[in-house]
């Protein structure tokens, strides 16, 4: 590991630019958070309001999926550069997860 990261001191301008970039990113994270809270509120309100289960179930599952995408892509930076391999791992995991749930549920219900 002797020489895999030569130390680099940034110029003042570059430093300020990076700081600004990070604070813009942080504002986007706050927006994601607000959306997640909003989606959660919709899901709980729909159930509390007592709409038909056939209407609620697909919608709250969709809201959960959107929220998970926000977590993965924004909070966990899955869309950032250098995340190709790990995104492949994660999607493989999700694919196996989907098949697992599908298989067990269909075996029991039919």
């Amino acid at each position, binding site marked *: *590991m*002797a*020489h*895999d*990261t030569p*130390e*680099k*001191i*940034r110029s*003042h301008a570059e*430093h300020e630019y*990076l*700081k600004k970039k*990070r604070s813009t*990113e*942080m504002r986007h*994270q*706050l927006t994601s*958070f607000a959306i*997640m*809270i909003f989606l*959660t509120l919709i*899901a*709980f309100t729909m*159930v*509390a309001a007592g709409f038909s*289960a056939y209407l*609620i*179930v697909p919608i*709250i*599952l969709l*809201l*959960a999926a959107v*929220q*998970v995408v926000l*977590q*993965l892509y924004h*909070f*966990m930076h899955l869309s950032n550069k*250098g995340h190709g*391999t*790990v995104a492949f*791992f*994660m999607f*493989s*995991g*999700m694919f*196996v*997860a*989907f098949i*697992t*749930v599908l*298989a*067990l*549920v269909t*075996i*029991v219900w039919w």
Partner: protein
Amino acid sequence: MDLNKRYTAQSWPDHPETATLEGKNKFVGFWLLLAAETVTFASLFATYLALKDRGPDGSEFTAAGLFELPLVFAMTMILLTSSLTSVYAMYHMKNHNFKAMQAWLGITVLLGLTFLGLEIYEFNHYVHLGFGYTTSAFSSAFFTLVGTHGAHVLFGLSWFIALMIRNSKRGLNMYNAPKFYLAALYWHFIDVVWVFIFTVVYLMGVIG
């Protein structure tokens, strides 16, 4: 490169978590773990869905009769907020502001502890009602799924606390930056799982 070398905000790399070979390896290995954990939880979710409201005994306990939304709503908001506070911690980590990072991690830990306390209260309440681990197939599947998530919360909290104490005098360096980053990733993953738990177990449970 000396891992314990001191950095300033100006010499701190843009992506300290993957700036070293060790950090890169940890990053890839940890995501592989998260992918495997996804499958673990999927099998527990599938078991729960298959055994929901099934006996043979204890059929007086159903998801619709048992679960109460206000508590679950509070737990959801607390865990979601703790996910944001750990994002703040990582924001300060990238700015090489160790004190601010520790402070936000401290808030994250407090929120996590509150969540865990509410979960213990909930489980205790169910057991007092007579809904124990061995009451029915439904109860076993429920406690295994939600309990495994709770165990992950406990592990995540211990991880944060251990990192905060171990590195309290050390400050941020190339050695511990990847560790903090991965602990935060783990915490987000716990929240991802909870999103499905509150939707599939509690909300869909209350509907019936």
